[in-house]
């Protein structure tokens, strides 16, 4: 089996997982300007929702949409009670600290409800493998690839085509301008936040069979999604997708051909290089003011 080809396939498949997580963050960070440190906790919430649904006998393919709905509902409540009141227009350290504290609250709740031990999530595809001209990809991973591509492209189209979608883009570019042109900005912000955390919940549900479910599972995905969002450029959905695939490939290649133990540092080195030399990232807006 050709090692390089398999590594590239691995990279793409893992990248698609990153894409779903990162697009959620792009929405909240790019559009609402909130540095959402609770993104990982919503990811974990999605995974736990799938796990709890499965444990009461709901099949995986039904549990997934339920999990997303649960996370979206929680997102709605949180946006209404906390985010709306404290985060819009506040300096960066406001959103940083509130969302970080929110992440701790959610993780502590999950730990108190479902206990500290890791729980397995049975994938409907079991341990099956898809053998495509000599290359091996796990069933669940193919499912992730398909769902992420489907969801992300549908979302991209909806953002461009639908009225609501265009309003979101308008609010992203110029909240004040959008307000003056009659867009209900608070409602758009709530929707964006719900969509953002919903995407994180979906990613949690999709990846749960691979990562198993444990309280602090959100931390790893939080770091990855920030790396991807910055690489892809702030506020750009297509940028986040591109960044996710790039990081997936870079990590896979670096891990295989260079060194496994230094791989975690790779993502950050790329981000630091990008921010210093190409601040707008791959496709984002150059929002940086520089000295």
């Amino acid at each position, binding site marked *: 089996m050709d090692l390089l080809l398999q590594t590239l396939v691995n990279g793409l498949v893992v990248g698609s997982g990153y894409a779903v997580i990162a697009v959620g963050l792009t929405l909240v960070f790019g559009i609402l300007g909130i540095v959402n440190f609770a993104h990982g906790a919503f990811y974990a919430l999605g995974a736990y929702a799938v796990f709890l649904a499965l444990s009461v006998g709901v099949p995986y393919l039904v549990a997934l949409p339920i999990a997303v709905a649960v996370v979206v509902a929680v997102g709605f409540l949180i946006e209404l009670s906390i985010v709306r009141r404290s985060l819009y227009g506040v300096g960066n350290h406001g959103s940083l600290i509130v969302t970080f504290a929110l992440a701790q609250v959610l993780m502590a709740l999950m730990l108190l409800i479902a206990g500290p031990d890791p729980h397995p999530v049975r994938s409907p595809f079991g341990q099956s493998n898809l053998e495509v001209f000599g290359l091996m990809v796990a069933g669940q991973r193919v499912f992730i690839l398909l769902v992420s591509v489907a969801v992300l492209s549908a979302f991209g189209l909806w953002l461009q085509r639908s009225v609501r979608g265009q309003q979101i883009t308008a609010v992203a570019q110029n909240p004040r301008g959008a307000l003056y042109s009659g867009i209900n900005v608070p409602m758009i912000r709530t929707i964006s936040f719900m969509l953002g955390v919903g995407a994180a919940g979906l990613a949690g549900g999709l990846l749960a069979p691979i990562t198993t479910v444990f309280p602090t599972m959100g931390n790893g995905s939080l770091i990855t999604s920030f*790396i991807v969002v910055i690489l892809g450029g702030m506020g750009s959905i297509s940028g986040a997708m591109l960044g996710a695939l790039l990081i997936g490939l870079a990590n896979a290649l670096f891990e295989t051909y260079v060194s496994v133990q230094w791989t975690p540092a790779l993502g950050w080195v790329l981000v630091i290089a990008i921010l210093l030399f190409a601040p707008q990232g791959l496709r984002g807006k150059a929002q940086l003011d520089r000295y």
Partner: protein
Amino acid sequence: MSSTRAFRINGAHLIVAWLLVIAAFGTLVSNPFVVTLAGYTSAFALFALSINVMLGGLGEVPLGQCVFFGLGAYAAAIGMKSFGLPFELALLIAMAVSVAAAAVIGALTLKLTGAYFSIVSWGLTGVVLVAAMNLEHVTGGPLGIFGFPTITFAGVDLSEPRGYFLVCAVLLVATVVVLAAVRDSRFGAAIESVRQNPHLARSMGVDVFRQRLKAFMLSAPIAAMAGALCIPYTQIVTPEVFAVSNTVDALLMVLLGGSRLLVGPVIGAMIFSIIPYFFNMDPNVRILIFSSAIILIMIFAPGGLHQLMSAVADRFTGGRRAPSGI
């Protein structure tokens, strides 16, 4: 320089008052756990002060400040363990190393601002943490560096609770005095002008980038000192000193105490360490309550306790009080 004469009078009084409080606390409180915890809290308050040089001073959130905290701990540990240096010398070297590192890191990252600066400096902690784990011959790898000889500072044995507390507390007060002087000096005025209105500051002759770099290089040694002062407490330095959770704890202290008040971080540090000491319920419940409190504070009093106190004070004094205060 506005409150110059007033500062000299109430400033001197305040320093003496703080020293008296420290001396009293050091001698009267008998429970060694509380005294040692107070020492560790003073060391961590230093780290919170260093963060506030950036947050209160420049309006930037330095998530990567734990790089200097860790650098201080490792440089001091390596100085003592592999070179057999006394703690005082190792501490000075650690602070010097952190200033050099701040110059390099600052030159790279201070071109950015706001969320980008925070996230890039957070990224740096990720890279440095991986380095600390993998460069075993230097950092002792995942297990870290331990087994230090008895650590003394100016003849005071730091493994003894009372000695540890007195040294940390005095260094804390000294740092507060220096920061108060900096805030009132030309450099302090330049920093404040850069924070409020960098565009206008530049047109008045302030080299904005250089002042931000100088502030960054001022905050680094304070963080390094905090890192080094934690060694007598933990007796071990592991890669976790570079973890961003240290910065977030210290950031919570700053926000609790209020970033606009010079000693806000110290007050926040006391609250942050003392409250958990009284509640001994399930740790996860404690995290739940503590984090919810932080959210409520950020919603109703983003300026932290300081804002609440001054709001209350204003209600009594009719609001004529000038906002400056030591």
